[in-house]
């Protein structure tokens, strides 16, 4: 079946549908990771986005029940050069087509994904509309372009409300907590030694798995949980999760973080890092085409070691906007943007990238140990 991806700048890519049918709008972004499409699909940070993979063959190893980062696929649409109908891997359970179809996600294949990526790199990420032909075989490109142009986009939109958990829950009670390959090579220490409250802005399961593996008992709470509610539980530490979209409209979360600062050790990842930055008085801005992939070099300024990191963000904390109460701990070697901060007085630190990986390298998993040490000291 024919499908079209129409960009707001009028560019139209025509290809074939796979997965679900219908029509969707979102911000079109590219991810350069060569593996891990299932993790990408299920990462809540991609909510509101149509994701294209730069690696051309997707679907090769199918989909399974365990390589998930949330309850199911979160992307608005999925764009690939060639979808592999055959899936070959000892753990594979479904084809990608089935997986997307059952979860209502539209896929398009057989388009020049490199041309699309180059367009996004040169002109910046842009809004797009992805649609499949209707029962009569109609698909109007001009109409789709208009829809892409009319869409409000991500800036200023609180996407967290679409992905945060409705009610608090204990991760060890969660059905997904018992499955999944543990990515760390650490031997599980005594579980439940540290009680951590994780604010869920769209948290990836692998963060929860990693915290658990490092000996934490994690209580996951909705994004709008107040500081008072969190502190009432008297946790050993507070985790600020990743999540989709623009951090600016999340004033409630920024306020909560401000109130939590100095009370308990805080560790933030991605959106959690941006919220910490904003809570500390910094500013955020939108990157031209973001960082999405598993090969981003980050320098840890304390040790001069380089970590190859997994990243997924379109917004960034302005390195020059930070108050002098904050140390810059990590920077991106590709474009020298901010990748990590630590408060000089309070036990609080955060990174823009994803030490929990999934997909991506495990180089930065030491950050979870750092959080543990911080809680231990406190």
């Amino acid at each position: 079946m024919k499908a079209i991806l129409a960009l707001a700048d009028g560019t139209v890519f025509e290809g074939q549908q796979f997965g679900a049918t219908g029509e969707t709008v979102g911000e079109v972004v590219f991810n350069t990771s060569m593996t891990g499409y299932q993790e990408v699909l299920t990462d809540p940070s991609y909510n509101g986005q149509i994701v294209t993979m730069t690696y051309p063959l997707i679907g090769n190893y199918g989909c399974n029940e365990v390589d998930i980062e949330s309850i199911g696929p979160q992307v608005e649409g999925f764009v690939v050069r060639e979808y592999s109908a055959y899936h070959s891997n000892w753990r594979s359970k479904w084809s990608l087509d089935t997986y997307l179809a059952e979860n209502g996600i539209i896929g398009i294949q057989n388009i020049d994904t490199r041309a699309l990526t180059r367009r996004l790199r040169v002109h910046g990420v842009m809004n797009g509309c992805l649609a499949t032909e209707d029962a009569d075989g109609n698909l109007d490109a001009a109409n789709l372009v208009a829809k892409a142009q009319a869409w409000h986009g991500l800036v200023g939109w609180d996407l967290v409300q679409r992905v945060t958990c409705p009610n608090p829950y204990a991760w060890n009670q969660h059905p997904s907590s018992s499955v999944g390959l543990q990515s760390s090579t650490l031997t599980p220490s005594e579980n439940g030694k540290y009680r951590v409250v994780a604010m869920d802005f769209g948290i990836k399961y692998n963060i929860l798995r990693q915290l658990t593996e490092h000996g934490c008992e994690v209580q996951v709470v909705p994004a709008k949980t107040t500081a008072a509610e969190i502190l009432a539980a008297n946790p050993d530490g507070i985790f600020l999760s990743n999540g989709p979209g623009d951090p600016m409209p999340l004033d409630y979360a920024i306020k909560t973080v401000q109130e939590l600062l100095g009370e308990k050790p805080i560790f933030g990842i991605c959106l959690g890092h941006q919220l910490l930055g904003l809570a500390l008085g910094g500013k955020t801005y939108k990157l031209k085409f973001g960082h999405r992939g598993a090969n981003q070099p980050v320098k840890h300024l304390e040790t001069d070691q380089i970590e190859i990191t997994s990243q997924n963000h379109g917004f960034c904390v302005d390195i020059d906007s930070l108050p002098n109460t904050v140390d810059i701990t990590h920077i991106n070697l590709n474009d020298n943007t901010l990748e990590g901060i630590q408060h000089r007085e309070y036990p609080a630190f955060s990174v823009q990238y994803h030490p929990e990986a999934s997909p991506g390298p495990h180089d930065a998993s030491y950050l979870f140990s750092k959080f543990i040490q911080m809680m231990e000291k406190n």
Partner: protein
Amino acid sequence: MPKRTDIEKILIIGSGAIIIGQACEFDYSGTQACKALKEEGYQIVLVNSNPATIMTDPDFADRTYVEPITADTVELVIEKERPHALLPTLGGQTALNVSVALAESGVLDKYDVELIGAKLPAIQKAEDRALFKQAMEKIGLAVPNSGIAHSVQEAIALVDEIGFPAIIRPAFTLGGTGGGIAYNIEEYQKMVAAGLALSPINELLIEESIIGWKEFELEVMRDGADNVVIICSIENVDPMGVHTGDSITVAPIQTLTDKEYQEMRDSAIKIIREIGVDTGGSNIQFAVDPKTGKQVVIEMNPRVSRSSALASKATGFPIAKIAAKLAVGYNLDEIPNDITAETPACFEPTIDYVVVKIPRWAFEKFRGTDETLTTQMKSVGEAMSIGGTFKEALQKGLRSLETGWSGFDNHPLEELPLSELSSKLTIPNVERIFYIKSALKRGMSIDDIYSYTHIDPFFLYNLQEIVHFERHLSSPQTRPFIENGKPDAEAVPLLRQAKQFGFSDRQLAEIYDVSEVEVRETRKTLGIEATFKTVDTCAAEFEAETPYYYSTCSSEDEVRPTDKEKIMILGGGPNRIGQGIEFDYCCVHAAMALKTDGYETIMVNSNPETVSTDYDTSDRLYFEPLTREDVLNIYDKEKPIGVIVQFGGQTPLNLAMALKEAGVPIIGTSPEDIARSENRQLFKEVLDEIGLMQPPNGTATSSEEAAPIAASLGYPVIVRPSFVLGGRAMQIVYDEKLLEEYMDSAVQASPEHPILIDKYLEEAIEVDVDAISDGHLTVIGGIMEHIEEAGVHSGDSDCVLPPYTLVDEQIDQLKEYTYALAKALNVRGLMNVQYAIKNDEIFVLEVNPRASRTIPFVSKAIGVPLAKLAARVMAGKPLHELGFTSEIEPPYFSVKAPVFPFNRFPGANSRLGPEMKSTGEVMGIDDDVSRAFAKAQKACGYTLPLKGNAFISVRNKDKRAVIFIAKKLTDMGFELIATHGTAKVLLRNGMDVQLVYSIGKGRPTIHDYIKNHAVDLIINTPTGDLHRTNELLIRQMAIENDIPIFSTIPGAAAAVNAIDALQSGEISVKPLQDYHK
């Protein structure tokens, strides 16, 4: 860390002659290292015996020693040059082994030379099987169940534990030489004995068989600050059991989830740290159980490798160059990524295309050997291709091989009975991929094919998609895209899909029964053009500065040609016997020279091992198959003012006419003149016109015609099919019976494919002449006198420059003849002529108006870069402007000696003849011709003995000549051993001889002596086919035991003189820069 300033002079060791398992890739890595370190201001001392390498060009190092790569010779270099550091990781296993020997013997300590890149303990830990296994266990990684054996007894005890099939891997051998898979105890004992003999430390690793598991490789780099990155991941299509050099491989990994890939990545990082490779690249191989995902570590190479060259070309990340910079102290984040210019080298390349590597074999030259692919590498070259999908890349790769396939074609033996087909699928072989096609066409299921081949179903599915699509294309229900000679616009989507599936115009022409030209024209009319994309290390995340391109069928073409004057150079494609690094050397030189003259150079090639496919070599690199279609696509895009076809060997020459017909401006000698030299009738006219002689000859268009022609010429005759490469299927035939055999077995004669029959000039001296001509002036580059008589392929002969037995009159005559030929053939550029001198008469054997295999050797011998001059001549500069107007006769001797791969092909006929069988060559230089010969022998791996037992067995006609040789040997203190006939002659001439029996006639035989290590030198000239088995066995044993063997009288004489020279004093070493002064 910034670069080190405590070292100034660095010794780099190359990998020597091209052999199976060690080819151009180490010239690529060594050249990159030389360039990178020179750029940093270090002085480079280089040792490499291979003259065909770019790295041994005198410009690339400060002191270039074309000397044997043996510990004692390198020690002489160290003594003379006193380098501060030795970089051992860029010259393959050869350099690594010599470096280890120098470190272990204390030479490095003695002269205070530091090993950089990898220290001795790290090399030992990676290379010694037991230490490696221990190290893996220490970091908690699984390795296949295995044990180490130093004797047959130990090995037998081990296999009781491990069980069959068992894998045998000798320690420290090249490309797994001597390794194999044994399925029963008898086979096992045989392989163990052979393996122990081959391993320099008499050590074997006996391993649990994990045949059929998935095989993967990671290319890893580490810097001095302990940063580790993965440059490329590779998945082998052929599962465990086939050497990775013999496997079709794909980059990146296709069938692992991120969880599994990251587990492998974590292991690789742990391994490089535990082994302790300080800086640089390593290759780590893993196997994965397809049923459970269990991962085991197979091995690690603590150096750059064939795979790292492939990874560099596959990703655009120059591993060797970066490794060299890391070795002198830089960290990864201090080195910029050339391709993006704005980001650092400290990252992991991500690619947005699929890379396929396909090996090329040469079994047709080694008839009689087992052609099964095993854990021992047998391929002689490889092609790499880049496509948007696996299907496209695979089909491009298959046509890049230049073995006649135009893609994923039908196997000619499609109708094999099922039982035979299943065995072709089960037992790995050269054409297995095409047998898979036969199976798919018959409707065999993916599951069934998997159960035979254990090739991952993902790949089989992709192959099946190609087969199904081809069926759809050929179906009568499908509209053809050409109807009544007119393009059908309705067929555009179908045609586009065909291109996306990688179908070549030739394949489509076959399907639609039209000509390739018609397909191309129709396709272009319908607007379906190849689009070009950039290899940029980053999947378009950053802008690419480096113009490295590939074609794929897609919507956007991102290449923007400039309006500069451009010249396009067509490379030589995958290495094969007869066409290898020498031609790549010429192409690289052309690019360098034309760049200096202000042209924009465009390189087209498909061989990932080469320097020509380094993005630094030319202004623009197209990594593409060398076919009419692919080259024309680039031509249409770039519109160069000239295309050079005479440097890449036969590959571009074969395209010359078709390109010219399509309007491509070929520069240099015209394709018509080239054809005149190749066409027997036209060439005869040329020779008649200038009054030169050829050996008497005739042409047979049928088998029946052959016998009377041969009889009229008089036996022996040389027979060969017309238009062949490297003397393919060329043979000396001594009588009518053998001629009949040849006509029946080797070739089918027909009017289109006649058989050429030449009188064989026995005992003639063969001479090679390389010359350059600008159309007015012709200058001889070098005259090379062969040591072996005419009849041995020039690529397989030892030769000497300048001639060592010819008189001035003969040399002058050879020059005059060469000038006349250059004039008659309107040569613009290079020309090679082969002459035979018999009874003071000079015969022309062959003229090739193109770069020859000997150009790099001659260039190094005379100190003039002939290929560079030729490229500039072709672009219009006269020789006098280039300052090369007269011949150079060097006051020293250069000897070229061939290296053979017979140790890989047991059972094959190892006799030398008109069909070329060597894979590479070395050069020996000395003021004295005998010492130069001794050096060349040593560089081939044959150290001439200074004392011991010499075995002599010669045919009757050589008995006179051998007397003097034998006498000299006894004078020099050798003991003689001979077979009956030879012994009698020697006895009669007053020499002491120990008699041995011919095999099968009594004991002891020479066999027994060799077994007892009581033979140090063999002189054995072939007697014709009567005793063939006896001779073959002797040759085979000599090869296995590394005993120098000479099978011609002139060769034996040269060897004896060389021994004499060596006895009067050890060899000395001298750099090219000093010779060329």
